[in-house]
């Protein structure tokens, strides 16, 4: 076979742009403030906001010992798997999930736009308080997310770099990493 072979046998049509979530300073700050408020009001250890593709959007609290990237991926997968279970019994989805541990527990709440709140908590608070505080926060955050993503696609602010302008640098980095 010799060296690995890559051959282009024809032209590719890449007309459609990648579907993506774009977050800018103002929207992100509003989200971040509400996540921090939820952390304080619920007495939780940590609060994370992830999307259903496993991207971590933001987090607050004691997360130093948590592998956040793995957490976001598995939280999204957990939600996706239980959504399939919901469908099997005639539900569209389960809006909340609760996992009880020996010391630490998890509480998940679905928001709009495929975003999930994940709360890590222990004996410093109760499931009841977490549930109530998350419910309130979910209403506020859902409104913020609709404001951010509900309308037309947001224009990138003038002062921000266009991703297509840095794509060449990313390609160079890929060449460096993968030879």
């Amino acid at each position, binding site marked *: 076979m010799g060296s690995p072979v890559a051959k282009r046998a024809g032209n590719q049509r890449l007309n459609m742009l990648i579907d993506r979530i774009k977050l800018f300073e103002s929207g992100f700050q509003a989200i971040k403030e509400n996540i921090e408020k939820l952390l304080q009001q619920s007495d939780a250890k940590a609060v994370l906001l992830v999307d259903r593709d*496993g991207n971590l959007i933001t987090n607050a609290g004691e997360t130093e010992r948590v592998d956040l990237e793995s957490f976001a991926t598995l939280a999204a997968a957990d939600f996706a798997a239980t959504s399939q279970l919901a469908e099997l019994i005639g539900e569209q989805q389960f809006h909340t999930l609760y996992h009880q541990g020996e010391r630490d527990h998890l509480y998940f709440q679905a928001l709009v736009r495929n975003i999930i709140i994940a709360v890590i908590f222990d004996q410093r608070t109760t499931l009841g308080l977490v549930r109530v505080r998350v419910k309130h926060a979910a209403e506020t955050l859902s409104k913020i997310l609709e404001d951010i993503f509900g309308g037309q696609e947001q224009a990138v602010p003038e002062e921000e770099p266009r991703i297509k302008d840095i794509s060449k640098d990313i390609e160079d980095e890929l060449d460096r990493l993968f030879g």
Partner: protein
Amino acid sequence: MALINYATREINVKIVYYGPGLGGKTTNLRWIYGKLDQNTKGKMITLATEMDRTLFFDFLPVDLGKVRGFQTRFHLYTVPGQVFYNASRRIILRGADGIIFVADSQRERREDNIDSLENLRDNLATFNLRLSDTPYVMQYNKRDLPNLMTVAEMEGLLNPERVLYFESVATQGIGVFDTLKEIAKMVIRKF
């Protein structure tokens, strides 16, 4: 779905390895995991059966570091290849920015490759997507084994759109980085 966070200067991209069971998807990820520096790779997550077959998915984050100030990460996922795990496959496929179809080059796996590609098209259709609108490449794996289909045969069977293809031996790492590098570039060029 790609995430671009201008506030925290982060770019996340999702790449999915798809293909028939025992075709080498997890082997691709393991090779990448084994070769990358600690700084570049995150923890590899494997949700597998006791027999080491992928049950839900494998996940490996690859971190390019800061590029023009943006922390740039590629999230690599494999789907379970076994036919009866389609619900898991659909979950993982959702939001994929780029796809690597890992085909098994052994002649006896001919039909399995065709079925898996058909399954990929069907699953994308449930999200109102067509394969032709998604960046994807073909990887013809196990080129070191006997009783292989020729590349021309595989192209005829599996690649009507004539996208890029790579010959590979994932167990030895041959073609693994080349395939990943190309799909990553294709996705980035679409931003």
